C-alpha cells in the first residue's frame, strides 16, 4: 500500500507539472549533476528521492564583472527523481532522471518575449562501488561511481514559430556522456553525528551529431568539487540534518564542429545550505539553497543567481534505519 502511495505521489508530481519550465545541461549543471548520487547504502536497500528544483539565472556577466543589465531571466524548474538499489553491501545502482521546464524571458524596448520549453531530460545510470564502509576504518566511507547519461531527452523542441530552439534550451543534450562520481564521508570521533564530506563529479560530455541537422555539438566537460559538513541534531522528537557545503564547478566551453564557442563555460563557487528533516527512520524532507559566492564566465553570459531545491527521501529496507548511527 505504501509503495502504491509513493508511486501515485511520483506520478502526481510529474503529471501535474506540465506547465513547468526547463532546465538544461548548460544552465543546469549544478541542479542536475549536483544532485547525483545517494549516500552509500546496504544490500537490499532501495532509496527514492524526488526533488523540486528551481534555478534562476539573471545575472549578466562579462568575465567576473557583473553587468548592469537585468533584461533577461532564465528560469529552470525541474522535477528530479532518483532511485537507488543496493545490489550488495558494496555495489549499488542509481538511476537519475528529470522532468524539465525552462523559461527565457526578455524585457527590452517595452516588449516582453517569453520562450518556454518542457520535456523529460536525459537519463543517467550510475554503478556505485563502496570502497570503504563505515566501521571498516573508524568512521569513514568512500564510494565511487561510473555512469552514463543516455540521450533520451528531446533536442528538437520548437519555439511557437515552429523553429528548433538552440541547444542550451533543449531538455536533452543529444549525447551519451560519461559520469565519474566519488564521495568521501568521515564522521568525527569527538562528535560522530558530525560528518565531513567531499564529492568529486566529472562529466565527460559526448557529441550531438545532428545539431540543427547540420553540425556536431558538444557541451563543455564539467568538473565539480563539493566539500562540507553536516550534523544530526534532535529538535523536539525529530531528527534534523543541517548542512553547509561549498560547491565548485568548472565547465569548459561548448564546441561546435570542434570549434570552441565563445560565451560558454566558466567557473563558479556556490554556498549550499540544506536542512533535512526526518519524519521517521525511512522518510525525510529536505530543503536547500545555492547562492553563488564567485562566478567567472567565458565571454558574456547569464550566470546563476540562486537555486532552490526541496524534496522527499524514501528508504525501503527490511531493516529499520537507526538514525542514531549517523550513517545516512
Amino acid at each position, binding site marked *: 500500500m505504501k509503495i502504491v502511495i509513493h508511486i501515485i505521489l511520483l506520478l502526481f508530481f510529474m503529471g501535474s507539472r506540465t506547465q513547468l519550465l526547463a532546465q538544461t545541461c548548460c544552465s543546469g549543471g549544478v541542479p542536475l549533476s549536483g544532485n547525483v548520487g545517494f549516500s552509500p547504502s546496504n544490500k537490499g536497500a532501495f532509496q527514492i528521492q524526488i526533488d523540486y528544483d528551481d534555478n534562476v539565472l539573471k545575472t549578466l556577466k562579462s568575465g567576473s564583472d557583473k553587468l548592469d543589465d537585468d533584461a533577461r531571466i532564465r528560469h529552470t524548474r525541474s522535477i528530479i527523481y532518483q532511485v537507488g538499489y543496493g545490489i550488495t553491501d558494496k555495489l549499488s545502482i542509481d538511476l537519475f532522471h528529470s522532468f524539465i521546464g525552462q523559461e527565457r524571458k526578455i524585457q527590452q524596448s517595452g516588449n516582453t518575449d517569453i520562450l518556454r520549453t518542457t520535456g523529460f531530460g536525459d537519463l543517467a545510470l550510475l554503478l556505485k562501488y563502496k570502497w570503504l564502509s563505515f566501521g571498516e576504518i573508524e568512521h569513514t566511507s568512500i564510494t565511487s561511481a561510473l555512469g552514463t547519461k543516455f540521450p533520451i531527452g528531446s533536442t528538437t523542441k520548437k519555439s511557437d514559430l515552429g523553429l528548433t530552439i538552440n541547444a542550451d534550451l533543449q531538455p536533452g543534450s543529444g549525447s551519451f556522456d560519461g559520469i565519474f562520481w566519488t564521495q568521501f564521508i568521515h564522521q568525527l570521533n569527538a562528535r560522530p553525528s558530525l560528518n565531513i564530506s567531499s564529492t568529486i563529479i566529472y562529466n565527460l560530455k559526448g557529441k550531438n551529431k545532428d545539431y540543427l541537422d547540420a553540425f556536431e555539438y558538444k557541451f563543455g566537460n564539467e568538473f565539480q568539487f563539493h566539500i562540507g559538513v553536516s550534523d544530526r541534531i534532535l529538535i523536539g522528537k525529530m531528527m534534523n540534518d543541517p548542512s553547509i557545503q561549498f560547491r565548485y564547478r568548472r565547465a569548459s566551453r561548448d564546441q561546435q564542429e570542434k*570549434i570552441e564557442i565563445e560565451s560558454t563555460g566558466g567557473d563558479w563557487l556556490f554556498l549550499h545550505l540544506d536542512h533535512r528533516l526526518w519524519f521517521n527512520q525511512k522518510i525525510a524532507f529536505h530543503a536547500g539553497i545555492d547562492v553563488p559566492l564567485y562566478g567567472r564566465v567565458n565571454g558574456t553570459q547569464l550566470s546563476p543567481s540562486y537555486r532552490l531545491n526541496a524534496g522527499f527521501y524514501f528508504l525501503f529496507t527490511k531493516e529499520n534505519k537507526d538514525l542514531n548511527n549517523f550513517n545516512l
Partner: protein
Amino acid sequence: MKFKMILILVLFSFFSCKDSNDSGFNNNGNNPTDNEWLIPWNEVKDGGPGKDGIPSLSTPPHSNNEAMEDYMEEDDLIIGIKVGNVVRGYPHIILDWHEIINDQIGDAKFALTYCPLTGTGIAWDRILNNGEETTFGVSGLLYNTNLIPYDRKTDSNWSQMRNECVNGNLSGEDPVQYQVIETKWSTWKSMFPEAEVVGVNTGFDRNYGNYPYGTYINNNDYLIFPISPDDDRLPRKERVLGIRDNRDAKVYRFSSFSTSAIQIISDQYKGDEIIVVGNADKEFMVAFKKELSDGSVPQLIPSNSNARFVMQDSNGNKYDLFGTIVEGPNEGEYLIPEDSYMGYWLAWGSFYIDAEIYGN
C-alpha cells in the same frame, strides 16, 4: 516488490520520454508555411538570444573621433553614412553587440542594420511605405545565417540581405536604402576628421571591444548556422564588396586593388558603366555609376595626395569616399551610388547564387 517498483519507474521513465514532436507549451503547433514567408522556412533559424535579446539602440548619443580613440584599434571597422554634410560613423565594436541602430540625421530617419555573422551593414529608411515611422529590433531569427530585423510598428520580419520584408503585414515591401561605406578606423579618421561617431555611452553595460563570437571572424571553417548554398569559390570570411541587382550580384575583392595607391576599376554591370574605387591597405571599396547627379559623366582619376579625397576629375572637382564632390566647381554634386555594401563572401555566395566575381 522492490524490483517491481524499480521496473515500473524505469519503464515509466523511458515511455514518458517519448514526447514525440515536441512543442513547448507556448507552441500552438501551427508551423508557419512557406506561403507565410517569402524565404524558405526550413532555412530560417532561431539564433538563440531571442527577440530583442540583442538590444537595438535608438538615437544613441554620438561624439567625435577623438572621443572613441581609447576604444578603437586602428584596424577596427566602422560603417559610415552621410546625409547632407553630416558624416556619422557606426563602429563594429558597438554594432557587434546591438546589430541595429535606429538613428536620425536631420530629417533622415534610418536604421543601420548590421549582421556580425555575415559582416553586412545596410541602412534602411524608418519611414514605411504607408508613411508611418517605425524602429527596427533584432528578431532573433536568421536566414542563411543573416540578420532578420523586425519592425516594431507591424511586427513584420525583414531579411537584411534580401532587402525585403519576408513575413508579416508588410510582406513583399522593399525598404528604401541609404548609401553606406565601410573602412577601418585609421582610414576613417584621416578621411573624415570632423565626423560624428556613435560612442560607447549607449545606455547598455557591455564590454565593447571584446568581440562576442570568438574566432568566427577569421576562421573560415567556423559556421554557427548552416548556409545554403555554401559557395566555396572564395574563403568564407573574405570581406568583399557586393553590388546588388534584384537577385543577382557581383563582388569585388581587395586583392584586385593596390595596397599602395587608390585605384579605380572601370567595369560594367547589368548594362551600367560603373566604377569601383578602392585600396587594399586602407581597406575600402565603394561602387558608383559613372555618372554624376547632374547627369554628366566625369573623367575620374584616383586622388592620393590628400587623405580626405579619393578621386578628382578633369574639372578640378574632388570627391570623398561617398562620391560627393566636396571641393571644386561642382561642389555638392555626387556620383550615383550603386546598391552595394561590404560583407563576408559566405553571405554573398549563399544569397546570390552564382554571384559574379570580378577578375575570375
